[in-house]
């Protein structure tokens, strides 16, 4: 078990895969990390030495924003839009799609489960 970036404990998977369990690290940045700290991508997390884990930890601290910090950053960006009173902010406030998608149908991800409309049946 290795603790990287706070609470995350990736398992006995290959290192680039295990790193993607951290919010803010996808496969691209996971591979980048492996190359930067010179870890062979075929190796697994439980084969890593303490110093290697430390190196990974330090690389992430120095170069990436992950987990809580990242979430806070995203929330701040959304809040900024909402406070500005611009169109994107209005869409966030209403929980509707922000990037010009149609809302006549679909858009269920933003709108949530469909609500029944009273008296719509024939």
């Amino acid at each position: 078990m290795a603790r990287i970036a706070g609470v995350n404990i990736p398992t006995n998977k290959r290192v680039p895969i295990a790193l993607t369990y951290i919010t803010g690290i996808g496969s691209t940045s996971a591979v980048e990390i492996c190359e930067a700290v010179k870890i062979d991508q075929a190796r697994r997390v439980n084969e890593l030495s303490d110093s290697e884990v430390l190196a990974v930890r330090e690389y992430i601290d120095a170069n990436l924003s992950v987990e809580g910090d990242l979430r806070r950053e995203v929330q701040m960006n959304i809040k900024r839009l909402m406070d500005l009173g611009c169109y994107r902010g209005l869409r966030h406030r209403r929980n509707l799609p922000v990037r010009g998608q149609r809302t006549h149908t679909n858009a269920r991800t933003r709108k949530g489960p469909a609500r029944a409309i009273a008296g719509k049946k024939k």
Partner: protein
Amino acid sequence: MSRSVWKGPFVDSYVLKKAEVSLEGGRNEVIKIWSRRSTILPQFVGLTFGVYNGRKHIPVMISEDMIGQKFGEYSPTRTYYGHGADKKAKRK
């Protein structure tokens, strides 16, 4: 695709003229503009623009965060009050 940098930001010329006039002279009145497509430039910060939304001019106080966006983003064009309760359904 975003606009080429070498073109510079797009602003309708009359917006620039009006802004310059109000920067020089008696400040603090709403500058009425119809050009929703114009970019908000750094020198507009602190001015108040009345951005037309098709019906009336919505006063928009320009702050630093708004630089680079368009005037139209701050003047919603649609009114939506939500769906009223269906009268037929109520009677039942």
